[in-house]
């Protein structure tokens, strides 16, 4: 029995490794000469990036291999792989993750005048370690039967007791909320931000939800009247039900501008194909890609010269918060601590 087992074990191990060698694993031999490919680790969901990569490959002949994962896990994995990492690019959503990857020394400088021309400075790392590639605005969604758009002014105003029992929020575990709070800390300092957060918590109609989608569903069902979402989630809802009573309104137009975040990317320090990586990021910042990038997920292009998708354009012009997004990353941990202290679940 022992022999049988030993053979079984060995064959299964060998079998499985053989399989994994067959599949196009980036191998260490390829390090010297640049292959005609580029390897991307991405925390952006695959159905949002694959069409872009396919288009890039078709235009340039460079193959894009990508691996998805949660941002913190990918960052940990990159650290574990060290100089042997097959990856050339790290692509994430949320500026906090990009800042952290940069802080951990995972990126090399982009060195690209193309990117600098295409993407405005507040969406890029001041040290050129990463760049934003799409902009996501987090703002009010409300039930148009119950609220007039002029009643909605600022994130801070949602803490006012007049919204008691009318507010729905996504969980504070969402990185989008943490970044929003981080931006508020930068503006108002911790004590004032804590007051705002406590106000939000007091006004909640129901326990914070797991996703932005649930916030909109709750408003539709009459559980609450107003919430905060990333606009592309609303875009999806609107595309499915064009005459939805839910509407978007822009936050903080008279003050700091609506809070934005980015999805973005940087070239990894240990990239074996840095030139291909640069080409891909430059291409992603270019007009063709930015058009698709936005259209795929109804986000805002990071490149301001791009004409908006008609559905997105219909939501109107808005003033963006100009705070450099690295600052959001730096303050994220403080934001979380504050969130925990005020008991925002």
């Amino acid at each position, binding site marked *: 029995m022992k022999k049988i087992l030993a053979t079984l074990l060995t064959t299964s191990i060998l079998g499985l490794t053989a399989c994994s060698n067959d599949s196009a694993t980036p191998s260490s031999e390829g390090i010297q000469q640049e292959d005609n490919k580029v390897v991307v680790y991405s925390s952006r969901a695959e159905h949002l990036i694959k069409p872009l990569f396919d288009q890039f490959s078709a235009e340039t002949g460079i193959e894009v291999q990508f691996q998805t994962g949660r941002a913190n896990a990918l960052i940990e994995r990159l650290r574990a792989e060290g100089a042997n990492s097959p990856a050339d690019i790290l692509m994430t959503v949320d500026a906090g993750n990009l800042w952290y990857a940069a802080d951990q020394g995972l990126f090399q400088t982009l060195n690209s005048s193309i990117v600098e021309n295409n993407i405005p400075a507040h969406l890029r790392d001041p040290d050129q370690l990463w760049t934003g590639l799409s902009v996501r605005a987090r703002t009010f969604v409300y039930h148009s039967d119950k609220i007039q758009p002029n009643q909605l002014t600022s994130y801070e105003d949602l803490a006012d007791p007049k919204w008691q029992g009318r507010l729905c929020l996504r969980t504070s575990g969402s990185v989008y909320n943490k970044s929003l709070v981080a931006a508020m800390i930068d503006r108002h300092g911790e004590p004032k931000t804590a007051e705002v957060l406590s106000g939000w918590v007091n006004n909640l109609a129901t*326990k914070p939800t797991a996703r932005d989608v*649930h916030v909109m569903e709750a408003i539709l069902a009459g559980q609450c009247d107003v919430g905060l979402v990333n606009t592309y989630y609303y875009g999806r809802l609107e595309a499915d039900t064009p005459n939805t009573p839910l509407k978007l309104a822009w936050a903080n137009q008279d003050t700091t501008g609506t809070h934005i975040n980015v999805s973005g990317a940087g070239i990894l320090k240990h990239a074996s194909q840095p030139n291909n990586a640069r080409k891909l990021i430059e291409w992603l910042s270019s007009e063709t890609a930015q058009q698709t990038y936005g259209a795929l997920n109804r986000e805002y292009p990071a490149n301001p010269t791009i004409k908006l998708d008609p559905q997105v354009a219909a939501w109107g012009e808005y003033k963006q918060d100009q705070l450099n997004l690295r600052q959001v990353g730096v303050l994220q941990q403080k934001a979380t601590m504050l969130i925990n202290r005020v008991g925002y*679940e």
Partner: protein
Amino acid sequence: MNSKTIWQISLWALIILISLPLLRLLSAWFEPNTEIWQHLYDTLLWTLVGNTLWLLLGVAIGVTLLGVVMAWFVTMCEFPGRKWLEWMLFLPFAIPAYVLGFVYLGLFDFPGPVQSFLRDTFGWSGLDIRQGSLSIIIVMTLVLYPYVYMLARNAFYSQGNGLIESARLLGYNPYQVLWHVSIPLARPAIAAGVMLALMETLADFGTVSIFNYSTLTSGIFSVWEDFRSLQAAAQLSTALLGIAVLLILIERWSRGRARYDATKRMNSRPYKLKGAKAWLVTALVSSVVFLAFILPVSQLLIWASKTLVEEWDSRYLDWISNSFMLAFGAALLTVGLAVIVNSVRMQARLSWPLKVGIRFANLGYALPGSVLAVGIMLLIIDLGELVAPGAGIWLSSGVFALLLAYMVRFLAVAYGPVESSFDTITPSMTEAARSLGASTPRLVSDVYFPILKPGLVIAGFMVAVDVMKELPATYLLRPYGWDTLAIRIYELSSEGLYDRAAIPSLMLLLLGLASLYMVHLINKRYKIRAR
């Protein structure tokens, strides 16, 4: 060195390999994170601990009740539809908890169709089912009761008719038989099933996060993501290990001296129910099958029919084959490991350090897959720094790290059934075969293997299905080109695209059912004849 010593040494080597990731996590305590701990202590810690214990208690009661009662009905009673229902009660095992979570939330939460209907027709004011812990306990119970059901059902069958007949002669009614005969005899099996369900509950991240219910496991994620501290996350995860140890001790204690004696067989069902009583039982059992299986699957089918065109992709074939290969490979390795441990155990009394080592190696089941994966990554980082620069390539060039993670995580699942099959081999069997002149290979192939086979197949099946459903470790450790169905489900559902996630969910379910059918075919010959 004689062969026994060699086996003992190799056993130690295997146990250490399995325990290394756990030890690496424990070693995180060498680097204190006072600031983070102070913050946790001031804010979340007690909520996390309280929520976790509350959830465990609820799930323990839920799975015991459902698992034992269902198992007792199908083994002891004859009622309409019994044969079908007996099999259907297994099926929820193939549904990942997080899938049932998002289906139930979609159906039953305030905005869902059920409450909308109640509000529109009866003017009901509505209810947020995510408040409190009841709904998450129900969801977890509905996916995890099969662990108890499976083991209790086997135990009830193997009690034989004799005792029950005697109890009836003494004037026991069915409830007294259940309480005073069946349950006490099946206690070790029930305890083992509850244990597995609780370990799974402890490690769950997907389901609790859909309900925004904070547990120690979600706390670990938040410490990792928010405070960017793997060390503190690893420290917090040792709290999970602590709870798991406590559970194991409770299980050992509750077993008492009861021993699982599987030599007898039922040859007929003692209670042939008639009329209203029979239909009542049918209704009760069917309602469990309905809630845990038919309802969620119908919802998934409705969603899938709307999104099939948009979501279908030829890469699904790859994802299916990856899910299958990983599940199969991990099942083989894990069951193999359990068999090696047990065959050494059979040959010689184990020293107590070895016994403790084996128990320790079984703890991985209580850890969230991602934490375990982190333990493995930390190990690889250490390895790279200390001995072999370039060890990181192990992560990206093969499935070694991933298979190791599966083995550590699911050894406990395989260990139980394998251990109890080994326990059915009595010294007298070996002696009898020896005295008839059987050589060692013949002893193994003609005596041991047939006895062990059903248990090994069940163990393999349970590991395989668990691996297919496993998300976090796979997501972290898979090499390029090894995406699975579970990963697709996660990617879609994390974007809120639940209707599209129905497609990979159903495929995963089919794959699980196919494995269950394979088990049925392989073990057919050993099926307990109940008629």
